[in-house]
Protein backbone atom coordinates (compact mmCIF):
# COMPACT_ATOMS: atom_id res chain seq x y z
CA UNK A 1 0.00 0.00 0.00
CA UNK A 2 1.29 3.45 -0.85
CA UNK A 3 2.37 5.39 2.25
CA UNK A 4 0.88 8.52 0.74
CA UNK A 5 -2.76 9.44 0.74
CA UNK A 6 -4.04 9.14 -2.81
CA UNK A 7 -6.29 12.14 -3.64
CA UNK A 8 -7.89 10.19 -6.48
CA UNK A 9 -9.22 7.56 -4.10
CA UNK A 10 -10.77 9.99 -1.65
CA UNK A 11 -14.04 10.71 -3.49
CA UNK A 12 -14.94 7.03 -3.07
CA UNK A 13 -15.31 7.67 0.66
CA UNK A 14 -17.65 10.66 0.39
CA UNK A 15 -20.89 8.72 1.05
CA UNK A 16 -19.57 7.03 4.15
CA UNK A 17 -18.02 10.20 5.47
CA UNK A 18 -21.23 12.12 4.83
CA UNK A 19 -23.26 9.65 6.91
CA UNK A 20 -20.65 9.83 9.65
CA UNK A 21 -20.74 13.62 9.60
CA UNK A 22 -24.54 13.63 9.70
CA UNK A 23 -24.51 11.37 12.75
CA UNK A 24 -21.90 13.53 14.44
CA UNK A 25 -23.59 16.84 13.76
CA UNK A 26 -27.24 15.77 13.65
CA UNK A 27 -27.84 17.90 10.56
CA UNK A 28 -27.53 16.91 6.89
CA UNK A 29 -26.58 20.49 6.02
CA UNK A 30 -23.86 20.73 8.63
CA UNK A 31 -22.73 17.30 7.45
CA UNK A 32 -22.11 18.66 3.96
CA UNK A 33 -19.99 21.47 5.32
CA UNK A 34 -18.17 19.10 7.66
CA UNK A 35 -17.30 16.67 4.87
CA UNK A 36 -16.17 19.42 2.55
CA UNK A 37 -14.03 21.01 5.25
CA UNK A 38 -12.54 17.60 6.06
CA UNK A 39 -11.57 16.99 2.44
CA UNK A 40 -10.26 20.54 2.07
CA UNK A 41 -7.96 19.92 5.04
CA UNK A 42 -6.85 16.54 3.77
CA UNK A 43 -6.14 17.86 0.30
CA UNK A 44 -4.44 21.06 1.44
CA UNK A 45 -1.05 19.36 1.35
CA UNK A 46 0.43 15.91 0.72
CA UNK A 47 -0.27 13.52 3.57
CA UNK A 48 1.80 10.61 4.72
CA UNK A 49 -0.06 7.62 6.09
CA UNK A 50 1.66 5.96 9.03
CA UNK A 51 0.38 2.46 9.44
CA UNK A 52 -3.28 3.32 9.03
CA UNK A 53 -5.61 3.11 6.11
CA UNK A 54 -7.43 5.96 4.46
CA UNK A 55 -10.70 5.49 6.31
CA UNK A 56 -9.06 5.62 9.71
CA UNK A 57 -7.15 8.71 8.67
CA UNK A 58 -10.29 10.38 7.33
CA UNK A 59 -12.10 9.53 10.57
CA UNK A 60 -9.35 11.24 12.54
CA UNK A 61 -9.52 14.37 10.38
CA UNK A 62 -13.32 14.33 10.51
CA UNK A 63 -13.18 14.11 14.30
CA UNK A 64 -10.76 17.03 14.52
CA UNK A 65 -12.81 19.11 12.07
CA UNK A 66 -15.96 18.33 14.00
CA UNK A 67 -14.44 19.25 17.35
CA UNK A 68 -13.10 22.49 15.85
CA UNK A 69 -16.58 23.28 14.54
CA UNK A 70 -18.01 22.69 18.02
CA UNK A 71 -15.49 25.09 19.51
CA UNK A 72 -16.40 27.68 16.88
CA UNK A 73 -20.11 27.10 17.45
CA UNK A 74 -19.70 27.55 21.19
CA UNK A 75 -18.50 31.09 20.51
CA UNK A 76 -21.55 31.88 18.43
CA UNK A 77 -24.55 33.72 19.86
CA UNK A 78 -27.97 32.16 20.17
CA UNK A 79 -28.97 33.67 16.81
CA UNK A 80 -27.14 30.84 15.09
CA UNK A 81 -29.79 28.40 16.24
CA UNK A 82 -32.35 30.49 14.44
CA UNK A 83 -30.27 30.31 11.30
CA UNK A 84 -30.18 26.55 11.53
CA UNK A 85 -33.95 26.51 11.70
CA UNK A 86 -34.21 28.01 8.25
CA UNK A 87 -35.91 25.68 5.89
CA UNK A 88 -33.66 25.10 2.90
CA UNK A 89 -35.03 22.93 0.12
CA UNK A 90 -33.72 19.39 0.62
CA UNK A 91 -33.95 17.23 -2.49
CA UNK A 92 -33.29 14.12 -0.42
CA UNK A 93 -36.52 14.38 1.55
CA UNK A 94 -38.61 14.76 -1.57
CA UNK A 95 -37.12 11.66 -3.12
CA UNK A 96 -37.72 9.24 -0.26
CA UNK A 97 -39.63 11.00 2.50
CA UNK A 98 -39.98 8.00 4.83
CA UNK A 99 -36.31 7.17 4.66
CA UNK A 100 -35.40 10.81 5.16
CA UNK A 101 -37.56 10.89 8.29
CA UNK A 102 -35.99 7.72 9.68
CA UNK A 103 -32.52 9.00 8.87
CA UNK A 104 -33.21 12.21 10.76
CA UNK A 105 -34.49 10.21 13.73
CA UNK A 106 -31.60 7.80 13.81
CA UNK A 107 -28.80 10.26 13.12
CA UNK A 108 -30.45 12.66 15.54
CA UNK A 109 -30.40 9.99 18.25
CA UNK A 110 -26.71 9.37 17.59
CA UNK A 111 -25.98 13.09 17.59
CA UNK A 112 -27.62 13.34 21.03
CA UNK A 113 -25.11 10.90 22.52
CA UNK A 114 -22.26 12.16 24.66
CA UNK A 115 -19.35 13.08 22.44
CA UNK A 116 -17.11 10.10 23.25
CA UNK A 117 -19.94 7.60 22.76
CA UNK A 118 -20.97 9.26 19.52
CA UNK A 119 -17.47 9.19 18.08
CA UNK A 120 -17.02 5.51 18.95
CA UNK A 121 -20.30 4.52 17.30
CA UNK A 122 -19.61 6.61 14.22
CA UNK A 123 -16.09 5.22 13.84
CA UNK A 124 -17.09 1.57 14.11
CA UNK A 125 -20.70 1.28 12.97
CA UNK A 126 -20.77 3.97 10.28
CA UNK A 127 -17.19 4.32 9.09
CA UNK A 128 -16.63 0.57 9.42
CA UNK A 129 -13.37 0.71 11.35
CA UNK A 130 -12.23 -2.14 13.55
CA UNK A 131 -12.08 -1.50 17.29
CA UNK A 132 -8.32 -1.16 17.05
CA UNK A 133 -8.48 1.31 14.15
CA UNK A 134 -11.16 3.29 15.93
CA UNK A 135 -9.02 3.40 19.04
CA UNK A 136 -6.09 4.79 17.09
CA UNK A 137 -8.25 7.28 15.19
CA UNK A 138 -9.91 8.53 18.36
CA UNK A 139 -6.81 8.23 20.56
CA UNK A 140 -8.44 5.82 22.99
CA UNK A 141 -7.69 2.30 24.16
CA UNK A 142 -9.46 -0.52 22.37
CA UNK A 143 -11.17 -1.60 25.58
CA UNK A 144 -12.44 1.94 26.06
CA UNK A 145 -13.84 1.95 22.55
CA UNK A 146 -15.59 -1.37 23.23
CA UNK A 147 -17.20 -0.04 26.36
CA UNK A 148 -18.27 3.27 24.82
CA UNK A 149 -19.59 1.52 21.76
CA UNK A 150 -21.80 -0.80 23.74
CA UNK A 151 -23.29 2.00 25.78
CA UNK A 152 -23.77 4.08 22.67
CA UNK A 153 -25.65 1.30 20.90
CA UNK A 154 -27.92 0.73 23.86
CA UNK A 155 -28.73 4.41 24.19
CA UNK A 156 -29.48 4.81 20.51
CA UNK A 157 -31.70 1.73 20.55
CA UNK A 158 -33.57 3.07 23.56
CA UNK A 159 -33.95 6.49 21.96
CA UNK A 160 -35.39 5.01 18.76
CA UNK A 161 -37.74 2.81 20.81
CA UNK A 162 -38.84 5.87 22.75
CA UNK A 163 -39.55 7.83 19.59
CA UNK A 164 -41.53 5.00 18.09
CA UNK A 165 -43.50 4.45 21.28
CA UNK A 166 -44.37 8.14 21.34
CA UNK A 167 -45.46 7.95 17.71
CA UNK A 168 -47.66 4.90 18.16
CA UNK A 169 -49.11 6.29 21.39
CA UNK A 170 -49.87 9.54 19.65
CA UNK A 171 -51.58 7.74 16.80
CA UNK A 172 -53.75 5.68 19.11
CA UNK A 173 -54.81 8.51 21.35
CA UNK A 174 -54.67 11.21 18.74
CA UNK A 175 -53.56 13.63 21.43
CA UNK A 176 -49.81 13.78 21.01
CA UNK A 177 -48.44 17.03 19.67
CA UNK A 178 -46.91 16.96 16.19
CA UNK A 179 -43.29 15.87 16.37
CA UNK A 180 -40.65 18.20 15.10
CA UNK A 181 -38.22 16.74 12.59
CA UNK A 182 -35.45 18.90 13.92
Amino acid at each position, binding site marked *: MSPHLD*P*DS*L*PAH*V*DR*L*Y*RAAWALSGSP*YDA*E*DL*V*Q*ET*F*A*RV*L*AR*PRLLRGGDELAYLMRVLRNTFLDSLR*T*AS*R*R*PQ*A*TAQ*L*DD*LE*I*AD*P*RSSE*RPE*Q*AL*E*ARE*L*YGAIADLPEDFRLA*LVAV*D*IMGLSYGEAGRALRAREATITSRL*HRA*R*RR*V*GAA*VDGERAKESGGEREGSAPPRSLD
Partner: protein
Amino acid sequence: MGSMSEIPDRDRREADRERIRVLLRAVEAPAPAALHERIARLATPRGERARARRIPGFALAGACAAALAVVLVLTLSGSSAPTALGASKLALSHAQGPAPATLTAAGTTIVFPNWSSLGWPSSGVRRDRLDGRAVTTEFYGNYPGMIGYSIVSGSALSWGTIESRISRSSTSFVVLRGGHAQVVAWVEDGHTCVLASRTASVATLVRLAVAQDATATAAPSRPWSGGVASPV
Protein backbone atom coordinates in the same frame (compact mmCIF):
# COMPACT_ATOMS: atom_id res chain seq x y z
CA MET B 1 -25.64 -6.41 41.75
CA GLY B 2 -25.99 -3.09 40.07
CA SER B 3 -22.55 -3.53 38.57
CA MET B 4 -23.56 -6.85 37.07
CA SER B 5 -26.25 -5.14 35.05
CA GLU B 6 -23.59 -2.83 33.68
CA ILE B 7 -21.79 -5.79 32.11
CA PRO B 8 -24.01 -7.28 29.44
CA ASP B 9 -23.55 -10.80 28.19
CA ARG B 10 -22.20 -11.53 24.76
CA ASP B 11 -25.63 -12.28 23.28
CA ARG B 12 -27.03 -8.99 24.43
CA ARG B 13 -24.07 -7.11 23.00
CA GLU B 14 -24.39 -8.95 19.72
CA ALA B 15 -28.11 -8.17 19.59
CA ASP B 16 -27.44 -4.50 20.22
CA ARG B 17 -24.77 -4.41 17.55
CA GLU B 18 -26.95 -6.16 15.01
CA ARG B 19 -29.87 -3.87 15.75
CA ILE B 20 -27.84 -0.71 15.18
CA ARG B 21 -26.44 -2.15 11.98
CA VAL B 22 -29.92 -2.94 10.69
CA LEU B 23 -31.14 0.55 11.61
CA LEU B 24 -28.17 2.18 9.90
CA ARG B 25 -28.52 0.05 6.79
CA ALA B 26 -32.18 1.03 6.54
CA VAL B 27 -31.34 4.71 6.28
CA GLU B 28 -28.13 4.33 4.31
CA ALA B 29 -28.24 7.03 1.70
CA PRO B 30 -25.60 8.44 -0.60
CA ALA B 31 -24.27 11.93 -0.12
CA PRO B 32 -25.97 14.58 -2.26
CA ALA B 33 -24.70 14.71 -5.82
CA ALA B 34 -23.68 18.34 -5.35
CA LEU B 35 -21.37 17.35 -2.49
CA HIS B 36 -19.80 14.63 -4.63
CA GLU B 37 -19.16 17.19 -7.34
CA ARG B 38 -17.60 19.65 -4.91
CA ILE B 39 -15.29 17.01 -3.45
CA ALA B 40 -14.29 15.85 -6.94
CA ARG B 41 -13.44 19.42 -7.84
CA LEU B 42 -11.42 19.81 -4.65
CA ALA B 43 -9.50 16.64 -5.44
CA THR B 44 -8.83 17.32 -9.10
CA PRO B 45 -6.60 20.39 -8.97
CA ARG B 46 -4.68 18.86 -6.08
CA GLY B 47 -2.33 16.99 -8.42
CA GLU B 48 -1.77 20.08 -10.49
CA ARG B 49 -0.82 22.07 -7.42
CA ALA B 50 1.55 19.33 -6.29
CA ARG B 51 3.31 19.32 -9.65
CA ALA B 52 3.57 23.09 -9.58
CA ARG B 53 5.22 22.95 -6.14
CA ARG B 54 7.88 20.57 -7.42
CA ILE B 55 8.91 23.11 -10.09
CA PRO B 56 8.93 26.57 -8.48
CA GLY B 57 9.41 28.35 -11.80
CA PHE B 58 6.34 26.69 -13.16
CA ALA B 59 4.51 27.61 -9.98
CA LEU B 60 5.29 31.25 -10.55
CA ALA B 61 4.32 30.99 -14.19
CA GLY B 62 1.11 29.23 -13.16
CA ALA B 63 0.26 31.95 -10.68
CA CYS B 64 0.90 34.60 -13.31
CA ALA B 65 -1.20 32.69 -15.82
CA ALA B 66 -4.04 32.39 -13.31
CA ALA B 67 -3.88 36.10 -12.56
CA LEU B 68 -3.79 36.88 -16.29
CA ALA B 69 -6.73 34.55 -16.81
CA VAL B 70 -8.78 36.47 -14.24
CA VAL B 71 -7.87 39.75 -15.90
CA LEU B 72 -8.67 38.36 -19.34
CA VAL B 73 -11.96 36.89 -18.25
CA LEU B 74 -12.98 40.13 -16.60
CA THR B 75 -11.78 42.16 -19.57
CA LEU B 76 -13.45 39.92 -22.09
CA SER B 77 -16.65 39.81 -20.12
CA GLY B 78 -16.38 43.56 -19.86
CA SER B 79 -16.25 43.88 -23.59
CA SER B 80 -19.69 42.29 -23.82
CA ALA B 81 -21.79 42.36 -20.69
CA PRO B 82 -20.44 41.48 -17.25
CA THR B 83 -22.39 38.91 -15.27
CA ALA B 84 -22.78 38.04 -11.62
CA LEU B 85 -20.98 34.80 -12.40
CA GLY B 86 -18.07 36.81 -13.80
CA ALA B 87 -18.02 38.91 -10.63
CA SER B 88 -17.81 35.72 -8.56
CA LYS B 89 -14.24 35.26 -9.82
CA LEU B 90 -13.31 38.25 -7.71
CA ALA B 91 -15.12 36.78 -4.70
CA LEU B 92 -13.03 33.64 -5.22
CA SER B 93 -9.72 35.46 -5.59
CA HIS B 94 -7.58 36.77 -2.75
CA ALA B 95 -7.56 39.79 -0.49
CA GLN B 96 -5.33 42.77 -1.24
CA GLY B 97 -5.33 44.08 2.29
CA PRO B 98 -6.94 43.89 5.71
CA ALA B 99 -10.60 44.78 6.06
CA PRO B 100 -11.54 47.89 8.04
CA ALA B 101 -13.96 47.64 10.95
CA THR B 102 -16.80 48.76 8.70
CA LEU B 103 -16.71 48.64 4.94
CA THR B 104 -19.18 50.25 2.56
CA ALA B 105 -19.22 48.87 -0.96
CA ALA B 106 -17.93 51.52 -3.35
CA GLY B 107 -20.61 53.23 -5.40
CA THR B 108 -23.37 51.94 -3.09
CA THR B 109 -24.66 52.50 0.43
CA ILE B 110 -24.48 48.82 1.26
CA VAL B 111 -22.34 48.02 4.28
CA PHE B 112 -20.71 44.62 4.46
CA PRO B 113 -22.03 42.54 7.35
CA ASN B 114 -19.99 41.45 10.33
CA TRP B 115 -20.25 37.68 10.50
CA SER B 116 -17.65 37.16 13.23
CA SER B 117 -20.32 36.08 15.67
CA LEU B 118 -21.49 33.49 13.15
CA GLY B 119 -18.05 31.95 12.94
CA TRP B 120 -16.94 33.84 9.82
CA PRO B 121 -14.62 36.68 10.85
CA SER B 122 -13.60 39.22 8.25
CA SER B 123 -10.20 38.38 6.80
CA GLY B 124 -9.49 40.90 4.06
CA VAL B 125 -10.71 43.12 1.30
CA ARG B 126 -10.01 43.88 -2.36
CA ARG B 127 -11.26 46.52 -4.76
CA ASP B 128 -11.58 46.08 -8.53
CA ARG B 129 -13.31 47.45 -11.57
CA LEU B 130 -15.53 45.34 -13.77
CA ASP B 131 -16.58 46.94 -17.03
CA GLY B 132 -16.22 50.36 -15.43
CA ARG B 133 -18.16 49.39 -12.31
CA ALA B 134 -16.63 49.42 -8.87
CA VAL B 135 -16.51 46.01 -7.23
CA THR B 136 -15.76 45.77 -3.52
CA THR B 137 -15.06 42.35 -2.08
CA GLU B 138 -14.77 41.37 1.55
CA PHE B 139 -13.42 37.97 2.52
CA TYR B 140 -14.55 35.99 5.53
CA GLY B 141 -12.85 33.09 7.29
CA ASN B 142 -9.43 31.75 6.48
CA TYR B 143 -8.07 29.15 4.10
CA PRO B 144 -9.35 26.57 3.40
CA GLY B 145 -12.76 27.66 4.70
CA MET B 146 -13.15 31.02 3.03
CA ILE B 147 -16.08 32.99 1.65
CA GLY B 148 -15.87 36.01 -0.67
CA TYR B 149 -18.63 38.61 -0.81
CA SER B 150 -18.53 40.94 -3.81
CA ILE B 151 -20.85 43.89 -4.32
CA VAL B 152 -20.95 45.38 -7.81
CA SER B 153 -21.97 49.02 -8.16
CA GLY B 154 -24.37 50.16 -10.85
CA SER B 155 -27.52 48.51 -12.08
CA ALA B 156 -28.05 44.81 -11.55
CA LEU B 157 -26.00 42.47 -13.74
CA SER B 158 -27.37 39.52 -15.62
CA TRP B 159 -26.75 36.30 -13.70
CA GLY B 160 -24.91 33.89 -15.94
CA THR B 161 -25.85 30.22 -15.91
CA ILE B 162 -28.48 29.66 -13.23
CA GLU B 163 -28.52 26.32 -11.44
CA SER B 164 -31.50 26.94 -9.16
CA ARG B 165 -33.45 29.64 -7.35
CA ILE B 166 -34.13 29.93 -3.63
CA SER B 167 -36.51 32.36 -1.95
CA ARG B 168 -35.80 33.24 1.67
CA SER B 169 -37.00 36.16 3.77
CA SER B 170 -38.63 37.81 0.75
CA THR B 171 -35.33 37.79 -1.12
CA SER B 172 -34.82 35.77 -4.27
CA PHE B 173 -31.39 34.14 -4.45
CA VAL B 174 -29.99 32.47 -7.52
CA VAL B 175 -27.49 29.65 -7.33
CA LEU B 176 -25.07 29.96 -10.22
CA ARG B 177 -23.08 27.23 -11.87
CA GLY B 178 -19.68 28.29 -10.63
CA GLY B 179 -17.45 25.49 -11.88
CA HIS B 180 -15.13 24.89 -8.94
CA ALA B 181 -17.17 26.80 -6.40
CA GLN B 182 -20.58 27.50 -4.95
CA VAL B 183 -21.97 30.87 -6.00
CA VAL B 184 -25.11 32.55 -4.66
CA ALA B 185 -26.22 35.96 -5.98
CA TRP B 186 -29.04 38.39 -5.37
CA VAL B 187 -29.92 42.03 -5.87
CA GLU B 188 -29.89 44.51 -3.00
CA ASP B 189 -30.72 48.19 -3.40
CA GLY B 190 -30.47 47.64 -7.14
CA HIS B 191 -26.87 46.35 -6.96
CA THR B 192 -25.62 42.84 -7.58
CA CYS B 193 -24.36 40.96 -4.52
CA VAL B 194 -22.36 37.75 -4.93
CA LEU B 195 -21.32 35.25 -2.26
CA ALA B 196 -18.89 32.56 -3.41
CA SER B 197 -16.84 29.85 -1.77
CA ARG B 198 -14.90 26.76 -2.73
CA THR B 199 -15.66 25.05 0.57
CA ALA B 200 -18.87 26.39 2.12
CA SER B 201 -22.11 24.88 0.88
CA VAL B 202 -24.89 26.75 -0.88
CA ALA B 203 -26.99 26.33 2.28
CA THR B 204 -24.32 28.10 4.33
CA LEU B 205 -24.06 30.93 1.82
CA VAL B 206 -27.82 31.43 1.83
CA ARG B 207 -27.93 31.31 5.62
CA LEU B 208 -25.31 34.02 5.82
CA ALA B 209 -27.06 36.14 3.20
CA VAL B 210 -30.32 35.81 5.10
CA ALA B 211 -28.57 36.60 8.37
CA GLN B 212 -27.35 39.84 6.82
CA ASP B 213 -30.89 40.58 5.73
CA ALA B 214 -32.24 39.85 9.19
CA THR B 215 -29.69 42.19 10.75
CA ALA B 216 -30.67 44.93 8.35
CA THR B 217 -34.33 44.38 9.19
CA ALA B 218 -33.64 44.43 12.92
CA ALA B 219 -31.83 47.73 12.59
CA PRO B 220 -33.54 49.55 9.76
CA SER B 221 -31.63 52.75 10.37
CA ARG B 222 -28.39 50.89 9.66
CA PRO B 223 -26.32 52.81 12.17
CA TRP B 224 -23.14 51.52 10.59
CA SER B 225 -23.98 52.91 7.15
CA GLY B 226 -22.32 56.19 7.90
CA GLY B 227 -18.99 54.70 6.85
CA VAL B 228 -17.07 56.41 4.12
CA ALA B 229 -17.50 54.81 0.70
CA SER B 230 -14.33 53.04 -0.21
CA PRO B 231 -12.47 54.50 -3.16
CA VAL B 232 -11.62 52.08 -5.93
